[in-house]
């Protein structure tokens, strides 16, 4: 029960973290969800999927962790300032690809200029990086929304106790 050290989590989370079955299944599935999310992002430029879908799947893993072990535990694992930074990081990666093509002598978001000798490779690289950026941002925004909602609930409950 090393993970339930923090008793101030949401009551729903506390109850769930005491049920062995839920804990074990969650711990087993989370790595697979993460891998699947990464697969959907990586494969996005060639098949169904992409940054948005993959990002949401990645976020689902974090949210599942939060639901089972409590939002406070999730917040301890990935502190909100880091999630905030990730939101910006993903968008920066996207915009950075655009800027890189400007620095290579093209116009903004001119992926072909990333590899001037092989425009096709440059486009593939540009698209892939943009997808990764979208994935990071979508994932961290979804986690933030979840944390915001759970935080609100926690404050309301604390207010009732007083």
């Amino acid at each position, binding site marked *: 029960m090393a993970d339930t050290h923090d008793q101030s989590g949401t009551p729903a989370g506390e109850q769930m973290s005491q049920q062995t079955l839920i804990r074990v299944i969650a711990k087993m599935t989370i790595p697979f969800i993460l891998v699947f999310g990464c697969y959907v992002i990586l494969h996005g430029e060639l098949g169904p999927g992409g940054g948005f879908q993959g990002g949401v799947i990645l976020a689902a893993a974090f949210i599942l962790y939060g639901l089972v072990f409590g939002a406070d535990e999730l917040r301890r694992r990935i502190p909100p*300032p*880091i999630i*905030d*930074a990730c*939101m*910006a990081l993903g*968008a*920066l990666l996207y*915009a950075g690809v*655009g*800027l890189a093509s*400007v620095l290579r002598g*093209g*116009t*903004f*978001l*001119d*992926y*072909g200029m990333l590899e001037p000798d092989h425009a096709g490779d440059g486009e593939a690289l540009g698209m892939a990086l943009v997808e990764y950026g979208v994935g990071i941002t979508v994932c961290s925004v979804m986690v933030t929304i979840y944390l915001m909602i759970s935080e609100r609930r926690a404050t309301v409950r604390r207010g009732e106790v007083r």
Partner: protein
Amino acid sequence: MDIELPESIRAHLPVLVVLLPLFGGLLAMFTGLVQRGGGVIAWAWSVLITGLMLVCSAAMLQLVHASPEPLVYRLGSWPEAYGIGYSVDALNAYVILVVSIIAFLTTVYAKDSVMAEVANDRHHLFYSVWLLAIAGLIGITVTGDTFNIYVLLEISSLTVYTLVALGGDRDRRALVAALKYLILGSIGATFILLGIGYLLMLTGTLNMGDMHDQLVRMREAGTLANNRTVFVSFAFLMVGLSLKMALFPLHLWLPNAYTYAPSAVSALVAATATKVGVYMTFRFVFTIYGGVYDTSADLQLLALCACLGIVVSSVAAVRQMNVKKVLAYSSVGQIAYIVLGFSLANHTGVTASVIHIFNHAIIKGGMFMAVGAVALRTGGTKIEDFKGIGRQMPVTMAAFTVGGCGLIGVPLTSGFISKWYLVQAAMEEGYWGVAAVVLLGGVLAIVYVWRLIEIIWFGTPDDPNKRVKEAPLSMLVPMWILIGASVYFGIDATWTADSARAAASLLLNGGHG
């Protein structure tokens, strides 16, 4: 003043003015990782970014005035008909400069105000969203692609809703105001999107210049007369844009949003957001539909709304008990002046509109800054907080008073220049009633401004022993630059009038960027 930039930067200016605040905003988020003093770092960073943006937009205006053709920038090197093309001409280079000036000065001003009004752990978010809002506003102005306008409109709107809601740390009513703004703003944006959709259906293109050319071709082929799609798209666009501009009677979101937003946000948004809405309207009415679709009946309706708006909002401003709300209602009235100008559809009228975009931005920006300084020192913006404040904060309140004279349109202030052109435009068309409404609006402005000035200078504070300090220098300097500019451009209006005339000729001669 001449700004020399290397050629490699000059070619990218149209996209740089958007990229600077976009990257700046995203990077500002990382200051949240700094444990202490992150807010100050974020502020200094924002000042740097908006300063660079100001240099770029000033250089761009010079470049536009020097070249006969609009500057065109193709994103991703796609041809404009397929990809996104940014294009800058005399009109939007001017609006971009106005937005950049206000953005830079309000950012300098924001430091102490934000420290006092926004919770400490949210400063990195505040400046990040702040810069993104500026990126959205500049982006709308620079782009020549209608769908891109919608996307950037959403960026700027969503960020402004957030900025308004951040006032919730000081007054919980900000949250309700932001929600109301969000609902009405989203309806407006949806209407604009529908209008753009119908235009796309009709012309098969999203580029403004291209759209105009297609419509001209359709008119020559005779397929445009009685075409219901054109009519519907125009109607959707006008309603959506009127909501975004806060044209009476679609202004209901504005007063509370401006009142409960953090002071710095009120100054930025009041001076820029609705002006960018007016700019969009220019583009749609004149650049896309100009000379193709008979807009005279619709423009008369707009003129009627504007006349009613001037009177109703000025009367409402007289009755408010919160100084920020007085200014907010006055903003509704001033937007109505701008709308009235271009809806007369003659050269002087459009010139008056374009001039007033600048003049109102500097006057209202400066006045909201003065109110923000009082909010910092007394903790409130109610009428009672202003009783006799003139003796304790004379420099701030002098700025407020000069700004108030500008709102009235006293000669030697820039407000006078705008009204002069406006009355002239109405007389050229023989609309004596419209000229009378403009003058009546001035009289009503005397009432609501004088009421405040009397309280500020001659009122007795409720608590005579209460001492408040003058505002800090970081607030006074930007405030006085704006107010000083409003006096300067009231005495020597050459620059504003020339820029506005160039923009008006461009719009009315079917020019498109």
